[in-house]
């Protein structure tokens, strides 16, 4: 059952990812990306990291995709079809990515992974305790750095998006 579900999710993700990077309507390619991200959240649910799946759904489906849809609506006419790359560039990109994928898959399949059988379910408390741990193997410093980064990004985004008007008000 889980196997069938995984293959279904994998098929959905790959098909929609291809549609997202080749669709000529911009808004549609954003929605296709949303399906890929939800498929990724499904994978997180299947490996029992429910907190991570919830974060993925909240941040990506709820935040990033809405932000990108807003920017598409602000800067782009929806009926307009996107320019396609020249055939040479397309084939070069396809060759390059196929080559990279082949190399990576070769590396993956030639490495003997020692998978450990387990059905561990991770409690959210454990994740929170690890993130706020100040001892060995604790992640308090990156956690705080991320919070400062988010603050800086928030201020930066406001300043950049306001642009001209902010200068004139001085």
């Amino acid at each position: 059952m889980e196997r069938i579900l995984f293959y279904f999710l994998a098929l959905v993700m790959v098909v929609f990812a291809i549609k997202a990077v080749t669709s000529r309507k911009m808004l549609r390619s954003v929605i296709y990306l949303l399906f890929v991200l939800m498929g990724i959240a499904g994978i997180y649910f299947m490996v029992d990291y429910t907190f991570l799946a919830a974060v993925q759904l909240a941040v990506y489906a709820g935040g990033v995709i809405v932000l990108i849809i807003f920017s598409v609506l602000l800067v782009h006419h929806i009926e307009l079809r996107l320019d396609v790359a020249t055939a040479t560039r397309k084939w070069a990109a396809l060759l390059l990515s196929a080559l990279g994928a082949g190399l990576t898959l070769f590396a993956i399949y030639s490495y003997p992974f020692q998978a450990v059988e387990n059905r561990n379910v991770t409690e959210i408390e454990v994740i929170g305790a690890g993130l706020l741990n100040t001892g060995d193997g604790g992640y308090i410093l990156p956690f705080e750095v991320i919070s400062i980064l988010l603050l800086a990004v928030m201020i930066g985004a406001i300043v950049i998006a306001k642009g001209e008007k902010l200068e004139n008000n001085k």
Partner: protein
Amino acid sequence: MIAGVSIYEILTVTTLLFFIGIYGFLTRKNMITMLLSVELILNASAINFVIMNKYLFPENLEGVYFSIFIIAIAAAESALAVAIIINLYKLVTSVEVEDTETMKY
């Protein structure tokens, strides 16, 4: 771990997603669609962290922490990129890569 699914199959899917993102990044000419491709690449690598964590080192949670940080940085990156794109659209009324030739505003 997912019953009946080996780590190789999941890594195959994430590799495909990653290189589909690379393909999109190389062929797209519009900045927003390039941003979408970058999101795809970042997500593919985030799943890799989680899967390695779950299949190889289930006692630790390092992969989960790194995925959370990747998600946070990706959100920050896309917010800044959208701000830059909107500002750029005000200045040159276009978000095509070819039309943005100078860094002077």
